[in-house]
C-alpha cells in the first residue's frame, strides 16, 4: 500500500470515530442532564453548604466560615453517637441479611416441583415499598394488637419505644426488606457454580455439609463479597424504616439516630443546613472508603481464574 493511501485511510477512520463519539455523547445527554440536575449539582452544592454556618435563628442569613465548623461537627457528641449507632446498625443488618438470603437461595436452588413460586415470594421484598412494609411491621410490633402481645409478651416500654429494642426492631425490618435483594444475589451466585463440580465432590466422598462449606461457599465468595458491599451501603442508607417505625418524636429516637436520619432531622427539624452538609460529606466519605476497602479485599482474596 502506498503511504499516501495509508494516511488518507487513517484520516477517514479518525473522522468516522469522531462522528461515532459525537453520536454517543448525544445519546447519553438526556440521562446525563437528569443526573446533572438531581445528583451532580446537589452533590457539589453540598460541599459549598458545608462551608457556611447556619444562623442560630431561622430566617437570618448564614455566613461563610470555611472549614471552621467541620471539626466542630465531627467532634460533637451528637455526631459521634450517631456514628456508633450507624455501625451498630450495620453490624445488625449486614450479616443477618446476607445469611438469610443465602439460606433461602440454597433452599430454593433445589429442583423441586413448585419451587418457582417460592423464588417469587423470596425475592418479592425488592419490589415492596418501604412505607407499606414499615406499616406492616409497625402493626406487628404494636404493643396492643401486635405479634408480641398475641404471643403473651408485653414488654414495657413497648419495643418501638424502648431504648434497647428500638434499634434491633428497625434492624429486623431492614433485614427483612433486604432479603429479596440478598436472595436474588445469592441465587445468581449459586447458579454460576458448575453443577458438575458439586457432583464431583459428592463422588469424591464429601457429605452435603462438606460440599457446601468446602466447595459451594468458596466458589460463592465473589458473590458473598459483592453482597457485603451492597448490604453495607444499604444499611448505611436505611432511612424510611427509621422514620416511619420510630420517628423524631419517639422517646427512643436518640438510640436509632443513624447518620442518614441525623442528617435529615438536623436539616428539617434543626434547620441547620451547614451541619447537615458536613455530616453528609462524612457519610459519603465513610461509604466510599469502606467500599474501596472491600473491593480491594475482594480483588486480593477472591481471585481465581475459572
Amino acid at each position: 500500500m502506498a503511504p499516501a493511501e495509508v494516511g488518507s485511510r487513517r484520516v477517514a477512520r479518525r473522522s468516522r470515530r469522531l462522528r461515532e463519539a459525537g453520536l454517543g455523547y448525544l445519546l447519553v445527554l438526556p440521562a446525563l442532564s437528569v443526573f446533572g440536575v438531581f445528583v451532580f449539582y446537589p452533590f457539589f452544592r453540598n460541599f459549598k453548604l458545608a462551608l457556611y454556618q447556619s444562623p442560630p435563628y431561622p430566617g437570618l442569613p448564614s455566613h461563610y466560615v470555611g472549614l471552621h465548623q467541620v471539626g466542630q461537627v465531627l467532634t460533637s457528641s451528637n455526631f459521634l453517637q450517631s456514628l456508633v449507632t450507624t455501625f451498630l446498625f450495620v453490624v445488625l443488618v449486614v450479616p443477618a441479611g446476607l445469611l438469610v438470603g443465602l439460606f433461602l437461595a440454597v433452599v430454593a436452588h433445589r429442583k423441586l416441583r413448585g419451587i418457582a413460586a417460592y423464588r417469587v415470594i423470596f425475592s418479592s421484598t425488592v419490589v415492596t415499598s418501604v412505607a407499606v412494609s414499615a406499616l406492616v411491621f409497625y402493626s406487628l410490633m404494636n404493643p396492643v394488637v401486635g405479634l408480641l402481645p398475641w404471643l403473651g409478651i408485653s414488654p414495657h416500654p413497648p419495643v418501638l419505644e424502648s431504648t434497647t429494642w428500638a434499634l434491633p426492631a428497625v434492624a429486623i425490618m431492614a433485614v427483612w426488606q433486604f432479603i429479596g435483594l440478598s436472595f436474588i444475589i445469592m441465587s445468581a451466585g449459586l447458579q454460576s457454580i458448575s453443577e458438575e463440580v458439586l457432583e464431583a465432590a459428592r463422588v469424591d466422598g464429601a457429605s452435603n455439609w462438606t460440599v457446601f462449606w468446602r466447595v459451594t461457599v468458596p466458589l460463592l465468595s465473589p458473590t458473598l463479597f459483592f453482597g457485603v458491599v451492597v448490604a453495607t451501603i444499604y444499611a448505611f442508607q436505611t432511612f424510611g424504616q427509621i422514620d416511619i417505625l420510630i420517628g423524631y418524636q419517639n422517646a427512643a429516637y436518640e438510640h436509632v439516630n443513624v447518620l442518614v436520619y441525623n442528617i435529615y432531622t438536623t436539616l428539617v427539624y434543626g434547620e441547620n443546613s451547614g451541619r447537615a452538609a458536613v455530616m453528609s460529606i462524612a457519610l459519603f466519605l465513610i461509604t466510599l472508603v469502606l467500599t474501596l476497602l472491600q473491593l480491594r479485599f475482594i480483588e486480593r482474596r477472591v481471585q481465581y481464574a475459572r
Partner: protein
Amino acid sequence: MGEIVFSGVTKRYGNTVAVDHVTLTVFDGELLVLLGPSGCGKTTLLRLVAGLEDLDEGEISIGGKIVNDVEPKDRDIAMVFQSYALYPHLTVAKNIEFPLRQRGIPHDERQRRVQDVMSRVGIAELAGRKPGQLSGGQRQRVALARAIVRDPQAFLMDEPLSNLDAALRVQTRADIVSLQQRLETTTLYVTHDQVEAMTMGHRIAVVNHGEIQQVSPPQDAYDRPANTFVAGFLGSPGMNLLPAALGEQGPDAGVPSLVVSGGTIPLTPELGAVARTAARFKAGVRPESLSVDPDGSLEASVVIVEALGAEALVICELPDHTQVVVRQDADRHRPGIGETLRIRVDPVGVHLFDAETGLRIEDR
C-alpha cells in the same frame, strides 16, 4: 476392585427413556467401553453408577453390593467428568488431595500419595497452580490424577478425551490404557468415538436409544455386528445397508444370490443356505468389500469422490437412490462425478440382517 452389574436398569426423564432395561456386567478389572451416538444415554448410565441419578427400575451392584440406595460418597468409585469438573478454587495438589481428605487419610500419607500420582501422570511441576491456569490437556491429567489417587472400586470416565486435540488424544488414550492395565481397576469408559472404543476396550457395549445393542470384544462387533445399527455405526464410514430380496440361482449352481436395486449380490454357499429361510433382507457390505470393476454385479452412478490420502471413498447411488460407499486405494483410477460404473461385491464380506427386526442372520 469390583464388578459392576446392571440388571434391568431403566431411567426416564419425563417421557424420555434415557436408559431402557439395560442388563450388563462389567467384569472385575475390565475396561469396558460404552459406545453410542450423542444422546443415547451413555452419560446417564455412568451417572446411575455414580449415584448422581436415581434409577426408576432395576438394580445396580458394585463389587457384589446393591447400591440403589447408597449415597454417591459411599459408593467408592471415582469419576472423570467430560468437563473435568476440577475445583476452581483449589490448587492442583489440593484438587488431587480432596478425595483423600474426605476419607480421613492422615496428612503424611495424603502428601505421599498426591506426590506419587502427580509424578505418575506427569504434572508434578503444576502442583501449585489453579485449574484456571492450566491447558485443556493438563486439566485432563489433573482430573485423571484425582480419580486414580485413591484406589477406588471402579473408574467411570465420561468422554475424557473429547476436549483434547487429535495428537494429545492419541497419546492420552494410550496412557489411560496402560494405567488401567497396571492398576487393574474396573473401568467403565464412555465415548462416542469408535476409534477410542476399538483401540481401548477389552469389550465394547454399543448403545442406542438407551438400549444395549451388542456387547463383545471390539473386533467381533466390527466383524459380526449384531444388528443393522451396530453395522452402520461401527467403521468410518459404516457398513452399506441395502434392501434386498432372495433371487434366482446365482452363478454357482445351487447358491442363490440377492437381488438389489441396480443388480445382484453374490452370496457364499453358507450364507446362501440360511438365506433360503426368508424372502426379504437388509444386505450389509463394508466399503472395503466393494470395488469398482467393469465385471461387477451392481450398477451405480457416482455422486462424489472423497480423497482421504491413502485411500478414496467413492460414494455412489443405486437406481433406488440408496447410497453405497466404495473404498479404494488412492492410486486407482478415480471415477468422475455422474459417471455410471459397475461395482463388484466380495461374497465373503456380505452380512445378512432381518428386513424387519434388523437382527443379524448368522451364517452357521
